[in-house]
């Protein structure tokens, strides 16, 4: 596999492989010196056109733990502010010979376009409303870690599905692994033609809450009020927010997940974030191992990755 643009590039087998590799890198991350020489001499360029805290840091840490060199790129201090096009920027970065480019952009499809413009491997770190595959991978890894497997789990994805790249990748990954996914949102925050997605849809959180293994909350942005998608955030929270009262109806072992950043008090009550079944910090922690696995999968030359990791 050359690029990771979409969860589709992996399929169930590929997701399993990433998770198996991530097990190893989790072990690596727990060593006194959490570093292996697997990608020594390789360069990973970060091309982030959008603000990001966890994804960018996570990729950087992952690359460094594999001994890769990291090329940073920050839009505010770059030629992008002088009007340079994405294509020209990609050409410029490519000319410096990175082995991989990690791309985030507010427009869907930019990683796919980038892949056509460079010889480097391209990893999608989030493109518009389209996909965020490494987020879905770390979510699969987290569910697998907590519940043993993703297959057969009943997962509720709650919130602004329409505008969410996380939702698209997660739906693909979860269903690919055999989970049963239910989307819960007001109709205005569901994607068009949602009937063509391999999911169930409910407009009522209360109707599905007591019968699921995972509630996966998505960020709901204030702008949705001005776009006439929501009357108000107050009404949203009342109808679709994961409140303390609603959480009491969850199965005690059910996980509460969220990709961050959280709009505290809007989509989820702050008290719930500190409970043992909330996985937000684990998701971030697993993100490093999962991104190490992805970088290794794309850039590690050895066809038998485990052996190299083991001897490292």
């Amino acid at each position, binding site marked *: 596999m050359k690029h990771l643009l979409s969860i589709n590039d992996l399929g169930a087998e590929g997701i399993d492989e990433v998770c198996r590799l991530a097990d190893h890198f989790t072990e690596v991350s727990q060593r006194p010196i959490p570093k292996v020489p697997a990608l020594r001499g390789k360069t990973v360029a970060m091309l982030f056109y959008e603000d990001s805290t966890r994804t960018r840091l996570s990729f950087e840490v992952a690359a460094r733990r594999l001994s890769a060199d990291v090329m940073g790129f920050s839009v505010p201090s770059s030629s992008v502010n002088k009007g340079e*096009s*994405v*294509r020209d920027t990609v050409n410029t970065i490519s000319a410096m010979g990175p082995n991989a480019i990690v791309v985030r*952009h507010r*427009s*869907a*499809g*930019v990683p*796919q*376009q980038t892949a056509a413009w460079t010889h480097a491997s391209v990893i999608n770190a989030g*493109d*518009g*409303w*389209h*996909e965020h595959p490494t987020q879905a991978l770390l979510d699969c890894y987290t569910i697998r870690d907590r519940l043993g497997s993703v297959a057969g789990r009943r997962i509720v994805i709650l919130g602004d599905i329409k505008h969410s*790249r996380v939702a*698209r990748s997660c739906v693909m990954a979860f269903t690919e692994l055999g989970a049963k996914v239910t989307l819960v949102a007001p109709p205005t925050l569901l*994607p*068009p*033609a*949602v009937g*063509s*997605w391999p999911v169930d849809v409910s407009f009522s959180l209360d109707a599905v809450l007591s019968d699921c293994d995972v509630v996966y909350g998505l960020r709901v942005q204030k702008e949705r009020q001005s776009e006439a998608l929501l009357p108000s955030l107050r009404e949203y929270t009342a109808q679709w927010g994961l409140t303390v009262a609603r959480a009491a109806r969850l199965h005690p072992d059910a996980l509460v997940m969220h990709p961050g950043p959280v709009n505290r008090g809007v989509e989820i009550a702050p008290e719930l974030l500190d409970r043992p079944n909330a996985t937000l910090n684990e998701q971030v922690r697993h993100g490093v191992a999962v991104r190490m696995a992805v970088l290794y999968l794309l850039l590690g030359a050895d066809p038998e990755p485990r052996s190299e990791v083991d001897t490292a």
Partner: protein
Amino acid sequence: MSTVIRGGLVVDQTGERTADVVVDDGRVVAVGPDLSGDLVLDAGGCVVAPGLVDLHTHLRQPGAEEAETIESGGWAAVRGGFSAVVAMPNTNPPIDCAAVVQEVLALGSKAPCDVYTSGAITVGRRGEQLAPMAEMAALGVRLFTDDGNGVQYAGLMRRAMEYAAGLGAVLAQHCEVDSLAAGGHMHEGEWSSRLGIPGVPAEAEELMVMRDIALSRFTGAPVHFQHLSTGGSVAMVRAARQAGVEVTAEVATHHFTLTDEACASYDPVFKVNPPLRPADDRDAVRQGLADGAVDAIATDHAPHPPDAKEMPFDQAPPGMLGLETALALVLTELDLPIAEVVGLLSWRPAAIAGLKGVHGGPIAPGSPANLCVFDPNEEWIVDPDDLASRSRNTPYAGRRVRGRVRHTIVGGHSVLVDQEMRP
């Protein structure tokens, strides 16, 4: 000096017959067997048709000469068999007054094909105030449109229709309700949902078709619908015509040859407005062409320089080239009798554009010599680097098509001979 087009099948609205055609001094002087002339153009195996007429061409001049000029667009036209094009008014400045009309016509007089221009319905194409249609009509403008924008306000559209009808002109509508289409970059449906690209629903077009049919019925003024792209639009136009409402319609080549699935490449070469639609709509557009609900095929030729199209999908401008591939795509993709093909591309659009008697035939002694000679069976592969247009944004790169223009004659001048441009 006379020219004889020898050995072709002459096809026009009066029928089909194998005949030679002699052209002299700008006119057809003879049609019949075994004729001779000073210059001989071989038409063996070819169709000799009235020159094609494009109701919908973006020539980009004035204002965006890096994308196309009236001259380069004119050459693209004659390579595609068009002897006449109607320029769209979304230039910079827009074609919304006599001065800009005069400039376009002056530049057009040096182009290899006949260049007509539309005029804007409203000042600046902003949909607020009527443009001076009478002064533009006095210069020969017969089609008014705010193309690129639909006229949003029903009350303004009503007055524009009434006013234009008094000038003997036709209003042409780019049907798009802004409040439904705003922010969209492709058809809203399964593919936009999967790709995470904001969509434009079919209803954004259909609501305005519905409204303007009602306004046409109400005012008695004709209206022409530009680049219809949905099954619902075609069905409404079909029903309106059967009810005697004076509406006409064109469809663009890409709407019966491509679907929204093409956007999965995220290549903005497939971004166009109205957007590529699903297969059901494509098939309905084809059906409309087959059963006469739709009058004409237009190219919506919309050149953009490579830089503009090498952008993220949602930032790139909409539009694709069409002049040099339209005829071949019709012949390749539609199973229509040859006279229907020529009718859809020549005499029916000529009638809508008010060019009857000048373009669109018939091919008979005395008629102006605007002709297109094409081999309906020659196969070729579309190569973006082998186009007369200044731009390269054809969505058909690498596609094998059938049917190639061999000669084009405009006003008696052989401007394309054996596929070679003759400046």
